[in-house]
């Protein structure tokens, strides 16, 4: 990681074409990895936008039950949403700790994010199991198909985030880590927060609005 941090070395020369660094001309002064993460998140916006749109397009079109109102559980989902929001809070604390070289705190908060993410996934596993027992499978009706594809894709995103943060945590024991590596934790954090805001939208559109 530290070797790559050289990418963000001070510019040798600046001009109309951009910035000249030890690695040649670059069009921006911004760290590549972070720019790339934002571009990825932009594309992921479109992905989830289509999935949520599809869910709504087929909303109320199921011919047989279970229907959303039969199975969705607002109190339970409120708790899991809250857990995911608080994991985002721990994420900013972890990044802050790494930036000021407070490695023990960085490890504590990062482990906390992974733990909260896992709790959220536990809620989702419970919810999916409960739904299948109630007769709602991915091919039972249009609600089942669109619901499981949408929330399942989100769940896979959360799983990837948990694994990423755990890998980060384990690596910090294998190889010394310091504030120069913060940009790598920052992009993991950006990804994590993005998964959180997608859930903010799903919680309202799929769960809350159903009961109004």
């Amino acid at each position, binding site marked *: 990681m530290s070797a790559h941090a050289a990418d963000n070395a001070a510019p040798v020369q600046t001009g109309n074409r951009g910035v000249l660094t030890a690695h040649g001309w670059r069009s*921006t002064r*911004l760290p590549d990895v972070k720019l790339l993460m934002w571009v990825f998140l*932009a594309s992921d916006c*479109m992905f989830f936008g289509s999935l949520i749109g599809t869910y709504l397009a087929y909303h109320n079109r199921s*011919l047989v039950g279970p229907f959303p109102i039969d199975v969705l559980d607002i109190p339970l989902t409120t708790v899991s949403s809250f857990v995911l*929001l608080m994991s985002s809070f721990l994420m900013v*604390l972890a990044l802050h700790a790494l930036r000021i070289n407070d490695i023990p705190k960085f490890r504590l908060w990062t482990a906390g994010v992974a733990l909260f993410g896992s709790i959220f996934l536990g809620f989702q596993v419970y919810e999916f199991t409960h739904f299948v027992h109630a007769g709602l499978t991915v091919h039972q009706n249009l609600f089942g198909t669109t619901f499981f594809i949408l929330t399942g894709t989100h769940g896979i995103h959360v799983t990837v985030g948990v694994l990423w943060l755990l890998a980060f945590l384990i690596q910090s024991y294998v190889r010394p880590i310091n504030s120069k590596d913060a940009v790598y934790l920052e992009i993991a954090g950006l990804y994590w927060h993005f998964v959180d805001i997608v859930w903010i939208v799903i919680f309202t559109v799929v769960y809350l609005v159903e009961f*109004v």
Partner: protein
Amino acid sequence: MAKNNHGSSVGTYILIALILGVITYVEFAIVEYPQAWLGTTMTLVVLAALSVLKFVLVVMFFMHLKDDDRMYSGFFSSGMVIALATFIALTALFILPRSMAYNESRERAERLEGQLAHGEPEAAAVVEEPAQAEAAPEAASEAGSEAAEASDWDRALGLQTYNSSCVGCHQATGQGLPGVFPPVAGHAAELYAAGGRDYLVQLVLFGVQGPIQAGGNTYDGAMPGWASFSDDQLANVLNYAVAELSEAPADFVPYTAADVASHRGDGLSPAAVHDLRDQLGLN
């Protein structure tokens, strides 16, 4: 520049986390303890606003877009704009036409009800099938004779119920869509004549699932149950299907709300209703 900016202070993060928690609780409370004075539309607006507020707070403070380089915001906004455009396009294609069609059929039913209240059954039959030029004369004469001899069931309520929930699949004249949705016209009377008086009630209450034969075609689909309608609505939509969309059998006695009520507790699955159908010996 991003480099010199290490984001907001820990105090700010705690404040934002508190606000996010409180908003989530408020959302929960609005849905769990509905506020009548707020009204449905306003409730939806408030929920959407709270969701957007949470979204913006996380992006601005936790993802630091507020103080970060503009280029990141640019990329992310482009993605958001395309996602929103996709979303709006899907809504325009799939959701708006459906709600417009629903409102149209409601208006039609209301108009019809008004005319019936003024005692103009013939006029009603014409309004019912404006686009069915070929079928109209037949249906109108049928409706006329029906209204003349048997007015002991609520035709307006039957038609209104039919138009609100049946017409989408079974179509305005009850002919269905061959191979996709079975016909009601003719077939309802056929089932009734085969001893299916009770079966028809169970059918509309609990739905049916499985392969059937109707009007010379095979159908393998599912109809949902309509137990959410009142006894009166279901009784009259059955009368409408048997006596008006079909030619009523000679022994037809109009359904009453009590007929429907007596089957409400049957608790059948759509598959069990299909078994009952088999017992009628039709197919």
